[in-house]
């Protein structure tokens, strides 16, 4: 997930640039991160593409429209049930490209490696990346390698960048949700975050849960074809979970959302692990799910197309966009009361992707 500037309402207190330090909350995908980006990078880079506030930028080139996105991967541990940092780096960037409705074409990969890192592990990660990129049909065509002294990194950090092409006539953006639009979630939430947590040092617990890390561009192509112009926006709920993604879309589009807790699919084992760890599945990261905002007339076709794809079998309509100046994401709880679903403040799970 690439955090861009207008997804999140920055906090009202200013960054203390003269005396402040970066802390872990600045990497959480929440408001503190938005404030950091707005206060530092926005000032330095500000331009119209950034201002769109999506996980990728789309721009016109001769003969069409291109999309570009970049993401860094610092997940810990490097290997987790259902994937590793390599496959994650391929899937994550492909998904950011795909969320614009684009067909991903090429990836680059850049490695920052700590002195002393085992070659066998590096080879295992590279093989996993190669396999993921071949399976997706998106080759890694260029790269860069840096090695830093022991202690100056943690094993390996990977940055991937992708480019893709948007089909003619398609214009998806997070600012296009309108009241009455339907929110479709492509499957169960929380699998990735819980799978990674289960392998964290000092938190080891026995579980069958595997990460959902997967490339979604195939599913996206089917969805785009089925929903046509009624498809307004897509986003993958990675760091910060479904809660963060819905809040980003609410803020970009100037609408609220109302979702039904019962309709949100959660595996029982994920729900149980979250219970144990004190996490809310709504805040836990996913790496192979998307939410689609679809005009009501296209909702049935969109849902059917997602459910027909192997990665979307558990898809469900979870709610709708509503008129709300305050842009709250509201939820009717399974218990019968109402609540809002907010961004998580602070850092729930550092280094989840």
């Amino acid at each position, binding site marked *: 997930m690439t955090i861009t500037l207008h997804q999140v309402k920055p*906090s009202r207190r200013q960054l203390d640039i003269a005396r402040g330090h970066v802390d872990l909350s600045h990497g959480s995908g929440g408001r503190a991160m938005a404030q950091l980006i707005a206060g530092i990078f926005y000032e330095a880079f500000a331009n119209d593409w950034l201002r769109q506030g999506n996980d990728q930028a789309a721009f016109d080139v001769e003969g069409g429209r291109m999309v570009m996105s970049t993401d860094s991967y610092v997940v810990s541990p490097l290997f987790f049930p259902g994937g590793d940092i390599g496959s994650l780096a391929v899937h994550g960037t492909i998904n950011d490209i795909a969320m614009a409705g684009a067909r991903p074409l090429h990836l680059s990969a850049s490695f920052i490696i700590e002195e002393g890192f085992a070659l066998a592990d590096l080879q295992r990660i590279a093989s996993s990346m190669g396999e993921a990129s071949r399976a997706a049909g998106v080759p890694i065509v260029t790269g860069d390698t840096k090695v830093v002294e022991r202690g100056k990194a943690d094993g390996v950090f990977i940055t991937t960048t992708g480019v893709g092409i948007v089909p003619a006539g398609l214009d998806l953006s997070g600012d296009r949700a309108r009241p009455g639009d339907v929110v479709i979630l492509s499957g169960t939430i929380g699998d990735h975050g819980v799978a990674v947590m289960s392998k964290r040092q000092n938190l080891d617990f026995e579980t069958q849960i595997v990460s959902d890390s997967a490339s979604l561009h195939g599913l996206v192509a089917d969805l785009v074809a089925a929903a046509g112009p009624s498809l307004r926006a897509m986003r993958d709920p990675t760091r910060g979970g479904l809660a963060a993604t819905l809040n980003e879309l609410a803020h970009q589009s100037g609408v609220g959302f109302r979702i039904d807790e019962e309709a949100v699919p959660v595996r029982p084992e994920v729900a149980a692990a979250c219970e144990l760890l004190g996490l809310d599945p709504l805040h836990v990261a996913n790496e192979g799910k998307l939410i689609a905002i679809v005009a009501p007339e296209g909702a049935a076709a969109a849902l059917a197309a997602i459910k027909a794809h192997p990665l979307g079998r558990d898809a469900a309509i979870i709610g709708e966009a509503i008129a709300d100046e305050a842009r709250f994401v509201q939820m009717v709880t399974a218990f019968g009361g109402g609540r809002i679903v907010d961004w998580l403040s602070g850092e729930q799970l550092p280094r989840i992707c």
Partner: protein
Amino acid sequence: MKHVDEYRDGKLAGAVARRIAAEALPGRDYYFMEFCGGHTHAISRYGIEDLLPGNIHMIHGPGCPVCVLPIGRIDHAIRLAALPKVTLCTYADLMRVPASRGASLLKAKAAGADIRMVYSTLDAVRIAENEPGREIVFFAIGFETTTPPTALAIRLAEKKSLQNFSVFCNHVLTPAAMAAILGDPDAKAEDAIRVDGFVGPAHVSTVIGTAPYVFCAEQYGKPVVIAGFEPLDVMQAILMLVRQINEGRHEVENQYIRAVTAAGNRKAQAEVEAVFELREAFEWRGLGEVPFSALRLRETFAQYDAERRFPVATEAAHDNPACECGAILRGVKKPAECRLFGNACTPETPVGSCMVSAEGACAAHWTYGRFREHISAASAAGPLPAPEAGEGIRTTRRAAS
């Protein structure tokens, strides 16, 4: 999720809500304080307010360990963390609590102090074992629930002959705080609160049992219903409180019979008794100095007491004068009545501790409930209609296979 979903069942909630609505006398108001932050969280997280009739008012109590810790203790912890060779181990909740002059443990860590987040006291003991060259200080906070694990950690450190493990003890006592709320003879008129009964602590009571609350019923005539932290527990406790009041009773009742006994956990009590002794007084945020309301390590365990081991200078610390955490912790004000709420003070930029912990009244209201003010302010927009009591019939969360 078996054994948990049952306590979150929307259908049962609807049934209890109908009973409450039927039994609450329309001619009167009921003011119940849920003592624990765990209850506050459940009420907000599950939208219990929407299931209660308008004449039942829930008042958030001071039972949030992070919230009641006065600012001076956070300053003290930051000073400990700044000492050479010291590693401060803390629960994550405390990292963002504002200290004096805009400091926090999170900022101290970013500035270079060795502060580590741990999930249990035993993690801190393990770090002490693995890093004999460092002085490991565990930032111990909490009510009676978290005190036995701290005692256990000290015993373990003793058994392993660890010379580099100590505890910065901030353990506090629930009954003393309830007495302070009920019996403050110095309370100013504007601070007077009406509490008709308590939803009593869940986890705390598993340790101390039900007997320590008898004074509420006997001396102050206030019913107490000890309740679990699941939303149905809270609903049922509210119904039991309504019945006690309607019948003119004031007793300690136990809704949480699946975990709480009259005597509590005697083994845990013995461990605590062996390691800790009462402090004559301890400062609580919101309640001020409360006599015999906190614990410190006994003399025999002095070497494990970070306060004795690392004397650091502390100075008087003051809360932000505009912050209403104190009044909110006493139940005198609601979060939205603080003018900092949602403006200067949000979970990202907390001014007071109640905005930090997930159990804090302000954080709970901000995170789950603040749309209600917005709706009442702009009722024309009318997004989420609050279900009528009894209408919120839902089945349990559907889980994908």
